[in-house]
């Protein structure tokens, strides 16, 4: 058991470790399209030396029970992601545009289904 006061990990306080070994294979994010015509969905990540191996590994790690009909592998380092701090700037503008939802409009029952 390691002591709770020191952490061997990079990017955490009290880190004492050297740089990661150069032999670590890059990280890939895996997306799988399920059986029923839905979009590819993120299922997790894995390490692989190259794209071909990433797809083969994804087959073994994420589709052992027929979970998918198509695999995308994207190197994690190539993904651009929004950060939690941007939440306000990104999503607040849509908060006051309630008219984008159909329920904003009152249509009399007499009009029928709409």
């Amino acid at each position: 058991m390691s002591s709770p006061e020191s952490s061997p990990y990079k990017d955490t306080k009290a880190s004492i470790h050297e740089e990661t070994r150069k032999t670590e294979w890059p990280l890939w994010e895996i997306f799988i399209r399920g059986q029923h015509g839905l979009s590819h969905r993120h299922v997790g990540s894995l390490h692989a030396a190259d794209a071909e191996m990433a797809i083969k590994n994804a087959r073994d790690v994420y589709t052992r029970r027929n979970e998918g009909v198509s695999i995308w592998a994207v190197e994690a380092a190539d993904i651009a992601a929004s950060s939690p701090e941007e939440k306000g700037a990104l999503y607040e503008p849509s908060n006051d545009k309630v008219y984008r939802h159909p329920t904003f409009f009152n249509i009399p029952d007499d009009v029928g289904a709409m």
Partner: protein
Amino acid sequence: MYAQMIKSTGQGVKSLDEMEPQERAFQERIDAGGKIEPKDWMPEGYRKNLIRQIGQHAHSEIVGQLPEGNWITRAPTLERKAILLAKVQDEAGHGLYLYCAAETLGVTRDDLTRDLLSGKMKYSSIFNYPTLTWADMGAVGWLVDGAAIMNQVPLQRTSYGPYARAMVRICKEESFHQRQGYDIMMKMANGTEAQRKMAQDALNRFWYPSLMMFGPSDAESVHSAQSMAWKIKMNTNDELRQKFVDQTVPQAEYLGLTVPDENLKWNEETGHYDFSEPDWNEFFDVLKGNGPCNTERLEARNKAWDEGRWVREGLLAHAAKKRSAKLAAE
């Protein structure tokens, strides 16, 4: 459990009033059942605790392949062999899902591997026991995976998003594991006298180590109180152990096997079974490295890592070469 004796800050749980605004917002989100995602702010203790817990859980899945892998070549039929192979392959998958989840907290896979191989990080005590007969494949699936399920089902609701999602995948696969184990036990318990004896012997040897998987009583532990406030631990060790005993005893009865505990008795008042505690000295001794198979398990993992090195490096060199050839062609 698969993660045993995880220590937190040891400082006791802060009340919301004692927290700075950032931490209070974090705790309120957890209290409201919200999820924490990798890029969100989190207290350093939460991050470190999770790395230890998820890492230890991942290591358990990986090392846990060894006792069952031991019987793949000697499974009694081709069908049993294929099933056991699929089960062990699932465990490899579980380890990988969990390593991914740990990596989102800023630790690398190599960091985790290195700490497993050096013995710095632990894996569950249960995998330091040997698998001596084919009946042990039954007992492991039935009892060990059964105990793991007890702990993993509530963890599907844990506060850390990537961990919760890994647990959802794992739980979907675990019930196959327990059922294949019980299926082996049924066959053995209803087989020849020698087979029935083997089944009983497997239960005798795995019963107390399975109870130890939940860890010692932690109702008074400040570490557990903090982990429960953070929702990275959902039940006390005693709650889960009791649940496991209550569920397992009737299953043993159905097999016609005897749980090796003279004090085991249904308690009408509590609505639970009374049972004997395992030998906690043995547990701490196994954690320290003195179990029957600690050395063998770590040697096997180190051997795999060392002997795989040229493959890891070779494939990386090959990938780099292909990449530069492609760039040159463009």
